[in-house]
């Protein structure tokens, strides 16, 4: 087993531990029933996704300033893993919403901004996939990633503000008993480890892809030399 496989196995094992805690340790919620257990992974995924997109943001900013290929590779890795976790968040959110609220979707601030998040970074991935690889693709994507990251809180804020203009139903209260809290923190920690491992593996894949495309850190030429004329 190489080290990537070892870490991946460890991360998977941790998720199984979290799963055990979710189903065996955490108590059933009095109001919502067993469906509430989705919450642990749902919120953890959301946090992991934001973490990944923060990597995209930082990687993008560093790339724009220094053209560091490493920063760009982390950004690409973060975007892909982030979209995966956002998808998980959205799907789990919808599965949770249906039994609790009666519909799969409401246009509240959190759901709307999570959907926007997904669309933006799906767009980021498409921009990369559809442009010729190289500096320009990296630069354009970095700009998209930065704007996307800033947009999410702006959208969240707009929708929250809009709701104050049109008051609607209040959402479920978040107070948690101790056992649930522990389970939540455990799940979140395991999910973050999983996300970090996934980003790391993906970074390696991006590095290999770059090498095939001959994209590397710029190597300065040591000395200028005069060309030899053809006799």
């Amino acid at each position, binding site marked *: 087993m190489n080290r990537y496989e070892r870490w991946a196995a460890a991360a998977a094992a941790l998720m199984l531990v979290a799963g055990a805690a979710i189903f065996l340790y955490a108590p059933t919620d009095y109001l919502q029933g067993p469906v509430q257990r989705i919450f642990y992974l749902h919120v953890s995924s959301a946090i992991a996704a934001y973490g990944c997109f923060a990597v995209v943001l930082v990687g993008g900013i560093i790339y724009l300033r220094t053209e560091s290929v490493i920063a760009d590779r982390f950004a690409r890795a973060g975007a892909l893993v982030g979209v995966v976790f956002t998808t998980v968040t959205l799907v789990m959110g919808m599965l949770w919403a249906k039994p609790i609220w009666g519909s799969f979707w409401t246009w509240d601030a959190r759901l709307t901004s999570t959907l926007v998040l997904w669309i933006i970074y799906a767009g980021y991935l498409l*921009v990369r996939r559809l442009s010729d690889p190289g500096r320009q693709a990296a630069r*354009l994507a970095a700009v998209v990633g930065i704007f996307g990251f800033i947009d999410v809180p702006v959208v969240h804020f707009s929708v929250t503000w809009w709701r104050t203009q049109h008051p609607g139903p209040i959402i479920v209260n978040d107070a948690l008993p101790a056992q649930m809290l522990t389970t939540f923190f455990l799940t979140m920690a395991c999910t973050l480890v999983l996300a970090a491992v996934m980003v790391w593996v993906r970074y390696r894949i991006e590095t290999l892809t770059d090498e095939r495309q001959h994209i590397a850190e710029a190597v300065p030429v040591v000395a200028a030399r005069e060309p030899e004329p053809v006799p």
Partner: protein
Amino acid sequence: MNPFRVALAVARKDIRSEWRTREMVPALAQFIVLALLIGNFGFHIDARNAPAIAPGILWLALVFAGLVAFGRTFAAEREQASLEAMLMTPASPVAIFAGKAIAASLLLVICEAVLLPALTLFFGTPFTGDVVAAVLLATVGMAALGVMFAAIVARVRARELLLPLLTLPLWIPFIVAGGQAVQSAMGLPGSYDQAIGLLIDFDILFVVLTSLAARFVLEE
């Protein structure tokens, strides 16, 4: 090198080109007519609910028209490799962006100038300075973002798909605040002043950000 002169030169060139070819006018006219038709036959509009529905029709038409207008703004440059020629000059990328944003906004403003009276005519919604101000303020921010994303997708394949995908999430705050502002101006509950304040904040935020991004997006 005076950036205002450059921006005006670029705006004038785009407007002149569009005026002479009139390529976009049919597409934009289509949107406006369709929006009005669908508004009438798709919804059951009467004097009571017109102020609730009309702003939706307005924004729908504007968003589609905006995507067309901004989509085209860099398409022409790409076809003729003229963007490269522009970048060979000392003209600053921000000024080029500003010029294109001005030209594309003008097209949108013309659409608005047709749509708003049309909505008043067909659905009886009020046509006041408040409504106009809200729409114009939203146009500024949407233009800055639209031009930037148009420049980004100009270098990428499948631009017809990518432009809406990238632009709409960034336009949502404007549609939310602008929609609320127009609704309030048309008599529905909600704070007009807060909405306008938000629009101004968003305008400032995104105009500054897109100006900073201009040189990264345009340069090779």
